[in-house]
C-alpha cells in the first residue's frame, strides 16, 4: 500500500458545496412528500435519502479517496443488508 501515505485533503469549498447539496436535497425530499404521490413518495424519499448518504460517504467520509478494499467491504455490507431486507419481505409478502 504505497498510496496510503498520499493525503487527500478536501478543500473547505468542496465540503461546503456538498453541504449545500445536502440541504437542497433535504428541501426536495420535504416538498416531494407534501404532494400526493401515493406509494411513489416512499420511493422518492428513499431515493433522495440514498443520494444524500452517497454524498456523505463519498466526500465527508472520504470514501471516494480511500483504497478500493474499503469500497468492496462497503458493498459487501450493503448487499448483506439488502439480502436481509429482501429475505424478510419474501416471507412477509408471500406468507
Amino acid at each position: 500500500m504505497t498510496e496510503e501515505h498520499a493525503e487527500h485533503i478536501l478543500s473547505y469549498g468542496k465540503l461546503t458545496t456538498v453541504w449545500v447539496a445536502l440541504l437542497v436535497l433535504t428541501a426536495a425530499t420535504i416538498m416531494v412528500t407534501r404532494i400526493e404521490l401515493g406509494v411513489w413518495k416512499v420511493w422518492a424519499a428513499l431515493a433522495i435519502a440514498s443520494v444524500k448518504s452517497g454524498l456523505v460517504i463519498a466526500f465527508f467520509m472520504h470514501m471516494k479517496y480511500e483504497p478500493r478494499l474499503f469500497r468492496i467491504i462497503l458493498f459487501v455490507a450493503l448487499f448483506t443488508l439488502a439480502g436481509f431486507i429482501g429475505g424478510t419481505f419474501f416471507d412477509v409478502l408471500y406468507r
Partner: protein
Amino acid sequence: MSHLEKDSFGAKLGMWLFLFTEMLLFGGVFILYSVYLTRYPKEFGLGGHQLDLVYGATNTVVLLSSSLLAAMSVTAIKTGAKKLTLGLLSGTVGCAFIFLGIKYLEWSAKFHHGIYPNAPKLIAGPPGESIFFSLYYLTTGLHGIHVIVGAVLMSWTAVMVHKERINVTDNVTLENVTLYWHLVDLVWIFIFPLYYLIL
C-alpha cells in the same frame, strides 16, 4: 519513518468494519419498521402525522451542519491549523447539544400527551399505533445514544488536539471519530423521511 509509526490504514479499516456492524444494527431496526408498516399502514400513518415536522427538519439541518464542521476539522488538522480544528470540533459538539435539546423538547411534548412506552393511552389504542411509537422511541433513542457517545468522543478528541497528541502528522484518531459522527448523520438521513415524511 520508523516501524513505530501508526498504521493509519489499519486504523481506518478497523473503524470502517465497526461502522458496518453499526449499519447492520440500524438496518435491523429499519427492517422491523418496514415490516410493521406493511402490516399497519393506517395506524402508522396516524402515528406519523402526530410527529412534529418542524422539529424533525430542524434537527436534520443541525446534523448536516455538524457533519460539515466535523469534515472541515479533518481538513484543518491536516493543514496544521490547530485553533481552527478546535473551533470546528467545538461547533460539532455544540450542534450535538442543539440536536439533543430539540429531541428533549420533542419527547417531552409527546410524554405530555400521554404518548410514551407502555402508556395507558397506547395500551388501550390499536396495536399498530403502539408499535409505531415503540419503534419511534427505540429508533430515535438508539440514535440519541449514538449522538451522546459521538459528542463525548468529539470532546475527548478536542482535548487531545489541544495537548497536541493529535497533530498535523498523527491524526487518524480525529479521522475515525469524525467517521463515527458521519454515521450518526447517515442514520438520521433515513430516520427523517421514514418517520416524519412518508407517512
